[in-house]
Structure formats: structure tokens, C-alpha cells
């Protein structure tokens, strides 16, 4: 059934526009929204190629070519930062989706109503805690002198660990915090998708004598696939964008950890935070966007070839 409509002989553009006028109208508010709030200011990104001044405005200020991008290269860290940013995002995407799907499936198994309500509510809590506070809590857990973890180690007769000077530990800590904060929230999408699965499929599986594992494998997972792919394509667009607040509040200026924790956003922040500089930040944003754009176009193209329905566009 899929694609019946689209394989029809192409009609003239105007005619098909007229035929689908109601659907077009239904899209209109959203389209207008993105025109006004996203596309209209977009030419302003030109600021990244100028030496901006208030007198001449964005389009009158002197053009300086790629000079606002130079510092990325001069700092000699472009590769390290790009690598760290991408690796963290890959870890977030892969682990995040696995945990969210697992949690959604398990929540679906819970039958006690109050247990379900309470546990689900509790899982939302981390999402509401500002990253500033997460930084404070992390310090209280991990610091060498008074941290809860080291107190515990000392109490059990061990030697305290200098967590804040051990760069190797931080990828695990950062990923764990990210999972802590986003898993409950993210699992909602999958949970809703499971809720949307037709119950007769489960019945049919049960009648066929499928085990719980087979039910997951053949009924639940396949129906989560479209959701998963959409999520994946969306996160790919942002693969060069780091979660500034999280990294900044956990690591801050602790240079001992930079080798494994520095991402594009934090490094740029340290470089230009005092310089009142909108041009460089826009330039960095463009660098990140172009990379994400290329990646998504490729991925979407592949998905499209595999199954048209799953593609974003």
C-alpha cells in the first residue's frame, strides 16, 4: 500500500497543490513559524564573515573572508576537539538509545499501577535539575578532600582517588551523568511507541507460544525501528554540537582533564568569552553545521535507499 499514491503519474504542480490545498493549509502555520523564526534571520549568519560594527550593520560591515575561522586552526586543537565532540555524541546516541529502549520495554512490563506511576515520575527528576547544580553535586561526590565516594573508600580502608586529576575516568563519568539526566526523559518516546503497538500483535504472538524474548525481538523492536531511525537522523545533525552546560559545569577550567573532556563548545568559550565577539561564535556554529549537514544528507540518502518510509525527507 505504501507508495501507491506517490508512484502515480506526476501531475502538474499547480494542480496537485490545488488538490491538496487543505493539507497545505494545515502545514501553513508551521511553515510560517519556521520562515519567521528560523529562515528570516538566517542570512544574518553572514556576520561570521565580517568584522562587525554597529554603524554598518551585518551586511555593511567589512568582509574579512575566513578570518573569523582562523583561531580554530591556530589553537592547534581543532582535531582533538572535533574528535572528542564526535566520540561523546556517538556514545550518547548509542548508549542513550539502548538504555531508553530497554527502560521503555521494562516499564511496559510493570503491572503495579502505583509503582509504575512513581518510578516514572522519579525518572523525570534529573531532567529538571539545572546543570549548574549537577556540577555542584558531582563535586560533592567526587572531590578528593570531602567527596562522598572518597569518604566511602577511606571508611572501608582504601586509599582515596584523585578523581579530578584522572582524565581517564571522565568519559565514563560524563556519559553516566548524561544517561542519568536523559534516559528517563528520552524513554518516553519509546514508551509511547510501545503503547501505540496494536495489542492484537501481542495476542497473536502469545497464541503462537512466543516467549517474552521472542515478543521483544519480533514484535516490539521492529515497531520501534522507525522511531529509532528518526531519532538517529536527528542526533546526527547535531553530532558536532556538544552539550556545553554539562561539560562546562562538570569540568570547567580543570585543564588536567582536557585531553578527554574538551569539546568544541567549551574550548571556544574559554578562548573568546572575554572578547565580546559574536562573529567568532557564529563562525564556529557554521563549521559545526556544515559537518552535521553533510552527515545527515548522507545518512538520509542511505536510509531512503533501504526504506523510503523511514527517511526524514
Amino acid at each position, binding site marked *: 500500500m505504501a507508495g501507491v499514491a506517490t508512484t502515480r503519474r506526476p501531475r502538474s504542480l499547480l494542480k496537485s497543490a490545488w488538490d491538496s490545498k487543505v493539507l497545505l493549509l494545515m502545514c501553513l502555520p508551521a511553515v510560517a513559524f519556521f520562515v519567521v523564526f528560523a529562515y528570516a534571520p538566517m542570512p544574518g549568519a553572514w556576520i561570521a564573515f565580517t568584522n562587525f*560594527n554597529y554603524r554598518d*550593520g551585518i*551586511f555593511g560591515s567589512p568582509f574579512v573572508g575566513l578570518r573569523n575561522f582562523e583561531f580554530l586552526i*591556530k589553537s592547534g586543537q581543532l582535531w582533538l576537539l572535533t574528535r572528542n565532540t564526535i566520540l561523546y555524541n556517538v556514545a550518547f546516541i548509542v548508549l542513550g538509545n539502548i538504555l531508553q529502549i530497554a527502560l521503555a520495554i521494562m516499564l511496559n512490563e510493570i503491572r503495579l499501577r502505583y509503582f509504575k506511576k512513581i518510578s516514572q515520575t522519579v525518572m523525570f527528576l534529573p531532567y529538571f535539575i539545572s546543570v549548574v547544580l549537577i556540577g555542584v553535586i558531582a563535586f560533592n561526590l567526587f572531590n578528593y578532600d570531602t567527596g562522598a565516594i572518597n569518604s566511602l573508600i577511606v571508611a572501608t580502608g582504601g586509599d582515596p582517588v584523585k578523581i579530578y*586529576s584522572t582524565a581517564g575516568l571522565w568519559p565514563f563519568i560524563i556519559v553516566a551523568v548524561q544517561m542519568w539526566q536523559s534516559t528517563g526523559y528520552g524513554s518516553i518516546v519509546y514508551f509511547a511507541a510501545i503503547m501505540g503497538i496494536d495489542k492484537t500483535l501481542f495476542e497473536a504472538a502469545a497464541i503462537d507460544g512466543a516467549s517474552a524474548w521472542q515478543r521483544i525481538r519480533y514484535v516490539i523492536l521492529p515497531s520501534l525501528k522507525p522511531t529509532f531511525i528518526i531519532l538517529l537522523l536527528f542526533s546526527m545533525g547535531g553530532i558536532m554540537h556538544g552539550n556545553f552546560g554539562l561539560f562546562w559545569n562538570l569540568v570547567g577550567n580543570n*585543564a588536567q582533564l582536557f585531553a578527554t573532556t574538551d569539546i568544541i563548545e567549551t574550548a571556544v568559550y*574559554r578562548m573568546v568569552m572575554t572578547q565580546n565577539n559574536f562573529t567568532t561564535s557564529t563562525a564556529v556554529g557554521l563549521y559545526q553545521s556544515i559537518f552535521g549537514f553533510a552527515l545527515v544528507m548522507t545518512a538520509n540518502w542511505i536510509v531512503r535507499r533501504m526504506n523510503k518510509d523511514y527517511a526524514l525527507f
Partner: protein
Amino acid sequence: MSSIKRRTLLKGGALAAFGIGTGVTLAACNSNNGGGTGGGGGGELDTSEAVTVTMLVLGDKPTNGRLEAMLEQLNAKLTEKVNASLELFYIEWADWQTQYNVQLLSGDSNVDLIGTATDWLFAWENAQKGAFLPMDEAMLSSYAPQTWEQVDSEGHWELCKLDDGMIYFMPEDNFTQWTNHGFFYRGDWATEAGIPDGEITEFEQFTTYFQWVKDNQPEAYPWDVAGTNEAALTGFVQGRTEYQVIQQVTAGIYFPFHTTTSDPTAVTSYYMEGDDLLAAAELAREWNDIGVWREDAVNYDGDTREQFYAGLSGADQHHMQTFLGILHRMPTDQPGSDPKFFYWGKENNNYYRDIKTHGAMAVSANSRNPERALAVYDILRNDEECYHLFNYGIEGTDYVIDAEGRRSQPEGFDPATDSLGSNFWYGRMDELEIPSATDPDNKQEMFDALDANAKDYPYERLVVDKTMIESTLAAMGAVLSEYIPQLQYGKFSDPAAAIAEMRQKLTDAGYEDARASIQADIEALEA
């Protein structure tokens, strides 16, 4: 912006949305308002029409009603004098650096007066980028005559000019404050540590002091310090060398360019040259081994001043003005603690008076009433009655004058909730200040003692052209942010090797180009 104009712009926006003519709309918004190129010429102040002058200040907008009550009285006077009333526009503390610059960026005419500063509020950058109205003698002497007179008599207008000879802001040049940094420490502990009279006179003596605190005050950190503090390095270098910091140039949060007193036109950097940084780093390493600070100080985000008040820290680090507060509160919190202030450069008198543009007031390039804005500012700054009203509020409710003629808080006044919050840090005058009852009696003597040996900052007029070196500065900031915190907290096992590595990376980032460029700016200044 009139509603008609706004509507036209909206229409333009709709076109722009489809990719036509956005350039025109965005650019137009930035250049066509109010004063325009303005600035030139004086004349009679035209007060025929009542106007509202809006002043941009930093801080949280108070919500206790006291500001409004004060403004009501003040505006009655302003209306009478120049037919204008004053409104305040607050840039709140949340994310204030971005907010401040972004508000100027929008370039509309809803702000007339802009509080600024060359060292912490981007005055030069914003003047260069055209956010401020250029002014000349005719204009200032016509509309802000008292201010013109007072600043002119001391020759301070020179400090507010770009190379086009125009004046871009009015300096707070007649207000004495000391923001020279140093350590606060406890005289009682220093005495017990065997320091003569409990008076530390050299930076290295803190090693003795800290060691004593570590050994004898188990509850306290010798110096509980949080985050990116560079004092262990800068404090040491300042007192041992004749380096002077060029305050106009930052790389990240660091100030990487210096000169020396003996050769004030040769730009150099102790980050790059000599052994002083290494000596400082080695002392820092010794302190780290003693356990002067928390192992994880750089990630610590606590309130170290409160720790000091609570007797949990042997030292705290900030400037003289803050020390006045320490002197007021510490005797109550820690009786007999005898707090003292050791400022950097005390040993060799290598410290500075505050610059005259630590606070300043500019007129917005988009102001529709620049003349009236100047007139209002002139009154706020020079009319005693208005000055007191604006800075202290209404006598009797916001403050009272005690028997010694000092300003103190009325009965039941809670500074946490009852503050006036007019935050006028852009044109205070020594003559019009009423001394505060919380200030120590010997404040003037302390200030005089500082003043006796202090130097004037030699480059107040230096305007650095950063256009070509911005990317180098950013790259240098990246390198410094990697090495300085670890040197400061003594985390390198081999500081000498680390410094060599850092110097190489700074060189790669283009240090020499930036240095040469600033050198040229300094030479131009001398010429």
C-alpha cells in the same frame, strides 16, 4: 521607533523571509535612528518637550518599591530643571556579559545613556564598533557643563577619545576607590605563626603562614580558593619584578602582554620570557604539597569568603574595597581575628591606582535625545540633592545620618531585601559622597598609605587595534587556559618542562605577531 516604522520593517521582514532584501532590513535597523552621526555642535538646551531618558545600568531590578519611590521624587526635580524624567534599564546578572553586548547590538533607540567601563564593560570595543555617540567640546560644554568643567580641569577627556579625536564617554574620574588585589589573612594566626607583629610584608612569608594554619588549625584550609584563580602566580610576579600588565589585551581570561617600568614602550610577556613564572610555579607547587588549597580547588565552586568568615580558611583573595567589608564583619564573626590585607606589589611598590574609566557613561548612538540625556547626567553627577537621592535614596527611609554625620541604615533595615539598587557606578564624585558608618575609622589613612606609593597606569589612553590579532589572542587563550590553572595549583611534576611546552605552543599560536601589533599601538601612543 514609531509604530509606523515598525510596521514597515515587519513588511520588509515578510519579504526577507523569502530571501529578498533581508540585508536592507537588518542593516537599516542599525543605522537610521536618532542621533545618527550626531555628536557635533552645542547650543541651547531645548526643553520645550517633556522626554524620558533611559539609563542602562548593571544589576538586578529591585522589586521592593524603594527605587520607584526615589525616582518619583527625583523625576519631579529633573522635570523642573530640564523637563525630563529618568528611567532605568537593568542588565541583570544572569549571563550579563552576553546580555550587555546583545542589548547594544539591537541598536534601537530605547536606551539613551549607557553605563560602561574600559576594563570590565567593553567601552573601547563598543566605541570602535559604533555603539556610542561621538561627542565634542561644544556639545559637552553646552549640555553637561559641570561635568565638562570638572573633567577638563584635570585633563581627563584625553582618556575618553579614540584616534578620531572625538569623546566617547564621560569618566568616573573623581571618585576614589582601590581595587588593587591581594590576600586577606588573620593577624592572630600570623602572630602565632611567628611572623613579627602578625604583619606579612613579603609574598613568600605566606608559606610560613599557610604551613602554620595547616599544622594548627585542622578545620581550616590555609587558603580555601575556588576556580580559576591566578593569584599565586600574579601576586608573586608582581611583587618580585617590575612587570606591568597591559590591561587592554586579554586572551581568554588571561592578560598575556606586559611591559616593564624601566622600559615602558617594549611589549613583552613573563609568560614567554624569563624565569619569574617558573619561580612562581615552584612556590605554587610547594604550597600544593603543603595542602594550602583543596586538592580539587579548580573545580570547587564554594563561597570562599564565607569560609573565611567562618574561620574555615586562613586567607581569602580580593581587593581593597572588599577588605573594608571584611574589616566591618570579621570582628563580629571571628572575634580577635585581626584581619589584614597584603596587596600584590607591596614589597616593591609595583601597584596601581584605579584607572579613571573603571566606570564611565556613554550616550547611545541611537539616542533620540542625546542633549537631554547629557543634561540629566550632568545633574545626577553634580547636583548634591539629586546625587544623594539617586545614590542613597530618601533620607529617613533608605538611610539616616548619624551623630557623626555618617550614613547608616535605618532601624530594621535589611540590606538583603531593602536595598535601593540604583547601581550608579558611572559618575560618582568624592565631594558628594556621604561617608558610610560601616567603613572603618582609619579608611582615609589606609587609602592615603596606598596612594603614597602607588603608580598611575601608564596606558590608560592605549587603544589596541585587535582586528588583525583577534584569532591569535583566542588561540593563545586556549593555550593559557590549558597551562595556567595547572601551574597556579602546582599540578605539574616538572613545571620547567611544562612552561617550555607552553611557550612553544604560544609561539605556534602567533604570539610574536600579536606582540608586534601591540608594540606598534604603544609606539603610536607615545608619538
